[in-house]
């Protein structure tokens, strides 16, 4: 493959789990709950899918179990943050620590250094060639041969948009986030809506985890999620939780990462610094966007959102 093709293909590859976490996380964000637990949810998705595929030998069963386990994490998060009115940032951090520790402990208990599924899953079989695109030279190398969840992730951007802005549920959810008093005054069940927003997030994070581990690499290792949940939170913030805008930030991040990796090959000794690109780029883009925006207003000072 040519370099450009590689960069673009990898962009999609790296964006996928972040997009899923972004889409999952923004429901909660819209409902005014900052879900710091995204990271833990992705870990749970990756870990539980890989472990159950290892135990039962079936990818789809693994997917189902992973979704179920991640939903449990989501339920715990909701129970504490909504029903018990906890400080949900602490709850999220607590869950992140807990899930990671459970993963490490289980691996240790099973005397495994990682979960290697390559005997069960052939990564190449997970890729889907798209018939129409497949003929076109460059496009095929970029768009074709991704995994199902990758395609699902990109489709979900549109789906989430429709759900949030065109359905009853979406309207109610946004209202709960924007003005909970207003929601309650017309009898919306704000707690229920918040629960569901978190649980939707859990399902999508489970997919992110599965994509990251079993589907793309047939492998789970400790720490493999490596902060993607936090990156997703950053993307949600940057795009103000708009499904399309936030996803664009996720893709931007994927692009930056792909650039860093692909160009690092030619960078010589300073390639070590290339890993900074994604983070610095997000900051610069934000700076640009914010300064454009702040130029628009003559108002001074800060307001609480």
């Amino acid at each position, binding site marked *: 493959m040519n370099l450009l093709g590689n960069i673009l293909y990898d962009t999609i590859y790296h964006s996928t789990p972040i997009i899923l976490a972004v889409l999952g996380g923004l429901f909660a964000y819209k409902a005014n709950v900052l879900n710091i637990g995204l990271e833990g949810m992705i870990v749970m998705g990756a870990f539980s899918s890989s472990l159950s595929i290892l135990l039962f030998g079936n990818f789809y069963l693994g997917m189902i179990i992973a979704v179920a386990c991640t939903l449990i994490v989501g339920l*715990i998060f909701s129970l*504490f*943050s909504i029903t*018990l*009115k*906890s*400080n*949900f*940032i*602490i*709850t999220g*951090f*607590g*869950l*992140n*620590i*807990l*899930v*990671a*520790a*459970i993963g*490490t*402990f289980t691996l*240790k*208990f099973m005397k495994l250094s990682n979960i290697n599924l390559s005997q069960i899953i052939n990564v190449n079989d997970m890729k889907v060639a798209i018939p129409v695109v497949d003929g076109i030279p460059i496009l095929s190398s970029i768009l074709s041969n991704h995994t199902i969840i990758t395609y699902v992730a990109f489709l979900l951007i549109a789906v989430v948009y429709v759900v949030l802005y065109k359905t009853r549920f979406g309207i109610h959810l946004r209202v709960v986030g924007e003005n909970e008093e207003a929601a309650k005054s017309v009898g919306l069940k704000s707690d229920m809506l918040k629960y569901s927003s978190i649980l939707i997030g859990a399902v999508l994070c489970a997919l992110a985890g599965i994509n990251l581990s079993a589907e793309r690499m047939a492998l789970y290792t400790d720490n493999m999620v490596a*902060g993607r949940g*936090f990156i997703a*939170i*950053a993307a949600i*913030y*940057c795009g103000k939780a708009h499904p399309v805008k936030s996803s664009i930030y996720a893709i931007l991040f994927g692009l930056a990462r792909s650039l860093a990796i692909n160009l690092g090959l030619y960078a010589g*000794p*300073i390639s*070590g*610094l290339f*890993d*900074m690109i*994604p*983070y*610095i780029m*997000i*900051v610069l883009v*934000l*700076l640009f966007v*914010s*300064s454009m*925006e*702040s130029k628009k207003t003559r108002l*001074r*000072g*800060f*307001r*609480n959102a």
Partner: protein
Amino acid sequence: MKTEKMMRSLLGILIPVLSAFLLGAVLILAIGEDPITTYRIMIEKSLFDPEGILKTLHLASPLILTGLAIAITFKANIFNMGVEGGAVLGGFFTGVAGFSLTGLSPIVHVTICLIVGMVTGMIYALVPAILKAYFKVDEMVVTLMLNYAVVVLVKYLSQGVFRDPASGYVATYAISDTAMFNKMFGSNLTMFFFISITVFVILYVVFKKTKLGYEITAIGKNPEFAEAMGMKVSTNIIRIMLISGALSGLAGAGYLMSEKYRFTLDFSGNPGLGWDGMLIALLGSHNPVGVLIASVFYAALKTGSEYIGIYTNVPKDIVAIIQGILILFLSAKFIFERLKIAGKIKSEAVKEGGKA
């Protein structure tokens, strides 16, 4: 009134702690170990053994600082996640100052190192501060991103120009003896603990007694009001972030000079001084005394878990699991108010609240 309130907050902490330990006990039993022995060692060694308690206080020293660094920004409603980066960067450059300067007297060298750490932290914090104060860029995203960038940067530097080539792993040179905090009473405790306590006292006074503390609170609660009342929010954001940066840099500096002595890639540990500090600030509800208590508690857990590994067969990860459960339970402060038993205390307290 006071006692009722204290009872309430005591219960609010005790119940989650006990429940977390109970759940942990179930887990320990499940893997065929003895929870009582485990907990006994954990508590005895971290709090009731002279050497252990000193070690706990030693480990609490940087946490007090990172906790305060975050508390001060959270109080002003600045969602600063950059304390981790500040501590790492501060530690790194303190390390550089610690080995590259020679022939100084200990007092001078130690002072220089501490200043280097603080200044590094301040410069680092200045970036998100300026971006927020003058361009209204979301500080949470910036600080989060910069943390990741710092990790890459110090990795690059510590395996590049500042690397100790004699070392088989990635590390900068060890700092000279003149830059080290000496161990006291034959324990791990050093001067650093007393520095942290001094900083705590200063911040306590700042929070409770000063104009600055007042402005921080006002900005945190209603920035528009604060601005209209002439508190110059942007200047204050920068001021607060600089203090936070100095504290985080100091935490890194002190930790390096009292514990690590050279910069390594795992310098800050896992999850890291800054992240621990974030939880500590949250658990201590952004209040200096709360931060102090939470730091010591957290450090005791750390010390205790080290001893568990040596005296029992309970794997370390169990401690991490208990810690996760604990944090989870502590997050729900109101948990006990929902229990029927506590109903009485609550109604009493409400009555009292109205009277005072």
